[in-house]
């Protein structure tokens, strides 16, 4: 199936190619060296980005909590407390590295890295901008679903290795919750794949171009997709263990859940992993439903590669951060569900709804030949 608006994208669909044109000397270096350098550079960029996002995110979380709760939040460190995360981070790194005497030492050390890596690995296929993606995999969505499961392994290992009953209960809850909610998350992203006809995230975003870059979003494609977006957000909220579904680490019940015994930077890894996953799911929602990096009323493809990438990156991040803010807003409003209610919600409400959506979208595509409502209206008016 052809994309609805077949915008022709010029040659520079990746930053790497642009760099190759700028520095022709690269052609003469051995391939493995170039590949290694590119990999290291891209990984470093991703890590720096995610660390900055997590630092700023934690600050925004606290500031937002302050706003909602009629107070101000951190305001001592730098103007408006803007480098609070630096102080927190350095302090966490410098803390004593505590391990419980009876813990499983190897697994205890391994777990935080798994959780962190699992959340960061998703960044590989996030289409940040028109030509900015670490690897435009053909199986992009599938890849994200796969690597984000590493987080649940990290949680399970952490809870088990801590040798703490509260941690174990939290870990069990976490594993059950994340595994269960993978299904509604995956099922509510499949309609998007159907519309785009591809698993590649960049392809999905491209398919939403045209019509002023806003009316061809999958969100407005048809009523089922509109509904599917909210189902996805709900399920994603649960998959990333945010309130009201923060059962694995609920403070008032299981002291800190699977993180109870973690201190210092090991706790920091879990914390960062949680934020990283939040970013990944919100970025996926943006890419899948909100038009990704498409700049409203402007065609990113027709700008130069610098401005095109910069503007579309800004648009993409704005959309994603809006979703992150909504998630935090939910977090500071709602109480927490109970574990059996969570499971009931997943299996009795979300999973049937996603199947219903899937059926609806498939029928829609079959009947209307893959056209969305805005496209049909546009066709009506010429």
């Amino acid at each position, binding site marked *: 199936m052809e994309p609805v608006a077949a915008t022709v994208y010029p040659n520079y669909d990746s930053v790497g190619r642009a760099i190759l044109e700028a520095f022709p000397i690269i052609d003469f270096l051995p391939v493995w060296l170039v590949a290694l350098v590119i990999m290291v550079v891209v990984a470093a960029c991703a890590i720096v980005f995610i660390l900055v996002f997590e630092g700023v995110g934690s600050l925004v979380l606290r500031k937002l909590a302050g706003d909602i*709760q009629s107070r101000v939040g951190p305001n001592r460190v730098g103007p408006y407390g803007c480098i609070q995360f630096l102080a927190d981070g350095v302090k966490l790194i410098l803390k004593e590295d505590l391990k419980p005497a009876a813990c499983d030492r190897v697994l205890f050390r391994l777990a935080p890295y798994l959780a962190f890596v699992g959340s960061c690995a998703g960044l590989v296929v996030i289409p940040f901008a028109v030509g900015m993606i670490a690897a435009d995999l053909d199986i992009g969505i599938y890849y994200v679903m796969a690597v984000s499961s590493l987080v649940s392994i990290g949680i399970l290992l952490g809870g088990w290795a801590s040798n703490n009953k509260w941690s174990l209960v939290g870990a069990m809850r976490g594993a059950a919750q994340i595994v269960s909610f993978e299904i509604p998350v995956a099922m509510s992203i499949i309609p998007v794949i159907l519309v785009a006809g591809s698993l590649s995230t960049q392809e999905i975003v491209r398919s939403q171009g045209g019509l002023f870059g806003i009316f061809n979003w999958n969100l407005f494609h048809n009523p089922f997709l509109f509904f599917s977006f909210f189902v996805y957000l709900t399920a994603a909220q649960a998959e990333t263990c945010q309130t*009201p579904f*923060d059962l694995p680490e609920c403070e*008032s019940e299981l*002291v800190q859940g699977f993180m109870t015994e973690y201190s210092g930077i090991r706790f920091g890894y879990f914390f960062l992993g949680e934020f990283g996953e939040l970013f990944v799911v919100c970025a996926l929602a943006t890419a899948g439903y909100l038009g990704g990096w498409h700049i409203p009323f402007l065609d990113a493809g027709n700008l130069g590669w610098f401005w095109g990438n910069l503007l579309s990156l800004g648009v993409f991040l704005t959309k994603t951060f809006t979703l992150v803010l909504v998630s935090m807003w939910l977090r500071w409003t709602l109480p*927490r569900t109970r574990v059996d209610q969570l499971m009931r919600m997943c299996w009795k409400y979300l999973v049937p709804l996603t199947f219903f959506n899937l059926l609806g979208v498939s029928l829609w595509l079959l009947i209307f030949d893959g056209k969305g409502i805005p496209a049909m209206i546009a066709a009506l008016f010429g």
Partner: protein
Amino acid sequence: MTEPISKEALRTDEWTINMGPHHPSTHGVLRLELTTDGEIVSKARPSLGYLHRGLEKIGERVAWAQFMPFTDRLDYLAGMNCNCAYAWAVEKLAGIEIPERAEWIRVLVCELNRISSHLVAWGSFCADMGAFTPLLYGIREREWVNDLFEMVCGQRLTYNYARIGGVSHDLPPGFLEKTKEFCDYFEPLIDEYNRLITYNKILVHRLKNIGVISARDAIEWGLSGPNLRGSGFAYDIRRAEPYSVYPKLDFNVVVGHADRGTLGDCFDRYLVRIDEMRESVKIVRQVIDRIPDGPVMAKVPRVFKPPAGECYFRAESPRGETGFYLISDGGTNAYRLKIRTGSYMAMNIFEKISKGVMISDIVALIGSFDIILPETDR
């Protein structure tokens, strides 16, 4: 074909989890020994005494008037109620008539303190349920009451305001206007709380049909206050055994009415507290309108020696019945001082109703009883 798994093979082991004394949601230092099968609790045994400070013993060693500041520490969320209850008890023992204005002032501060206590109870209950914001809203409004109390007696939490024979200070100028202002400000907020979280689907589902106590059970286990009224039994000491000026005041006894689930569940106890705040505002408004002028302190000898005898006085505190049983041998201090508190009684029934609930519901149960540990351990 595989054989069907027998029930024996599916048998799981129970384990014991220690909850507390330091746990974020045990409201202090309550310790629970949970025997659970996975998440299902088969037995929850409260273990008390981590805050046993010997208050009753202290009451026997210090002079009658000197015990007043210790009653603040008895139920720190409602110091005024304990203050006044102790003062009323000693006055009953010694047969002292206190001035009319002092009675009205005591009722005023007791009801204000009931509001502030229920605010924290509501807020911390919501925080136990995972919603952190209501706690801060509750405390934000409590600050206003704290300021009012600081104006009237000079302390935010440990008031020591009542005296044997009256109250320590008359109301400061402008206090009644400020209180009225608070009532006008606070009353619409209760509706806002309800919109914010009370009828939230998640909270309702967390609370309904959990920890059901029938009225009969509640009476048999000696519950009192909102915990008893949540079971639908309209027993309020302010009505059932009227003291002070409560007979002259118009207010309703709030009872649970099975709003969402079964009668006597956590949600009913929660709603009783919310509605009691409304009733308290109503009482405060009446007191502001009708408070008479006059002295606030009766003539009590400086070395106070009540006649030999005994008495029991009970008052309705936010946590139920706060009763002082006093025996005097005619000396300057009590021969025996026994305190009956609502939280301790709630701890008795805990083991009975916590069978078969989940770990999350244990937290809901603790929150719905609104226990205060110094009151339990004394």
